[in-house]
């Protein structure tokens, strides 16, 4: 379902003396439906970078990134937008929302984007929020004032609202207590069971061990340090 083939990336910082910083060379990764693959490696090694390239958020310099039939590295913006709506989900570390939008609307957004009617979409959003232990009195408030852990749970609810065939999870259990970590891992297992291909970054060893079938160490793709 997800196939990364010989992908390379470097950053060129034009406003800092045109410094060229290579960050990845020859990255390869394959994820089948129902599999969960973990990206591991020290902080700064390129885990998030690779994930963002799969999502199309970062440009790959060379190589192919196939999600389903679409090569994200070459696709038209329109195709990537379509992909993100129906096929590829992404739960980042940060919750980015339009201020003043109620939480239940934030979570329902991916469902509305695929054409679901408003009422069922909100009901599903509420079910997820309930599952993630977000108190009902918060559902009509904007999540911008929530605690870090609450925001993360809203983020996760939004990521799991729609049944994406491919899912990217960046530290989904960070800032969560044991109860909620359990809920999230359960949701990941549920997604796997329905056939989703998942790439995840987990700092928590136990969580990683529980849900992930394989580990890929991104340090294997680090360019050799310049002299």
């Amino acid at each position, binding site marked *: 379902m997800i196939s990364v083939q010989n992908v390379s990336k470097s950053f060129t910082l*034009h*406003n800092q003396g045109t410094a060229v910083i290579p960050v990845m060379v020859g990255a390869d990764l394959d994820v089948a439906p129902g599999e969960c693959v973990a990206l591991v490696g020290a902080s700064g090694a390129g885990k998030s970078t690779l994930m963002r390239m799969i999502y199309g*958020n970062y440009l790959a310099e060379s190589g192919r990134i196939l999600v389903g039939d679409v090569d994200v590295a070459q696709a038209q*913006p329109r195709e990537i*937008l379509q992909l993100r709506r129906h096929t590829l989900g992404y739960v980042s570390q940060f919750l980015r929302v339009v201020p*003043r939008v109620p939480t239940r609307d934030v979570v329902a957004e991916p469902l509305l984007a695929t054409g679901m009617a408003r009422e069922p979409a909100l009901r599903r959003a509420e079910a997820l929020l309930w599952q993630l232990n977000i108190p009902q009195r918060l559902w009509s408030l904007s999540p911008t004032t929530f605690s870090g852990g609450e925001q993360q749970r809203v983020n996760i609810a939004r990521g799991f609202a729609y049944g994406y065939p491919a899912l990217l999870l960046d530290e989904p259990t960070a800032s969560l207590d044991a109860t909620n970590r359990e809920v999230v891992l359960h949701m990941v297992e549920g997604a796997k069971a329905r056939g989703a291909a998942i790439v995840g970054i987990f700092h928590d060893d136990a969580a990683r061990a529980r849900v992930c079938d394989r580990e890929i160490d991104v340090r294997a793709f680090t360019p050799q340090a310049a002299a």
Partner: protein
Amino acid sequence: MTPLLQVEDIAKFYGHRIGCTGVSFDLFPGEVMGIVGESGSGKSTLLNCLAGQLTPDAGAVRFDTRAEGLRDTVTMNEPERRMLGRTDWAFVHQHARDGLRMNVSAGGNVGERLMAIGARHYGDIRAEATDWLDRVEISADRVDDRPTTFSGGMQQRLQIARNLVTGPRLVFMDEPTGGLDVSVQARLLDLLRGLVREMNLSAIIVTHDLAVVRLLADRLMVMKDGYVVETGLTDQVLDDPQHAYTQLLVSSVLQV
């Protein structure tokens, strides 16, 4: 799939000065394109050329009309272009005053486009106008009030209702949140997002505010000195800028 708008090599010059040049892109139904740049970048000139408010010196702007498919609006005759401007196209101005009739009631403002395409039943016109006021979160009891009695945010929302009542497929917006209080901006952005999705609108939004494009636009074009220096998915251009100017722009934004 046929693009809704096909822009090819649009250029506009002011004597020797470049207003904008070499702009080409395709826009598909349901897509929102943001155009950012600083003052003098040419973004407003480009928007006005696309929307038929200015005549470009070169290039084509082809719109997928309902009756005849792709037609170049630059070479269209004026009655046709004006008709397009009342039905399939909409233009939201930065200052609501430029897009509203200030001496006509809110209901009259929203109903005008309906009357312009032949609506002749007062009750129906009023009902539809009231419905639209509700959709832009203006209380129905304001339907007979003049926009001069509205706040800036309400005027802007009224302008949006006035433009969208005939169900256009393409909306041009020039700094839609400019001049509004920050809290009001948020509400307006959310309203616009909802309407874009519900009505499957395409939109081209000019702004200097990167936060607005991040929240509203799927795709982004960055302009400098009349040229398009970078284009792509909004989140990609903002998170992984390739061009020197884009990198400068993104790094200059103040974080709160």
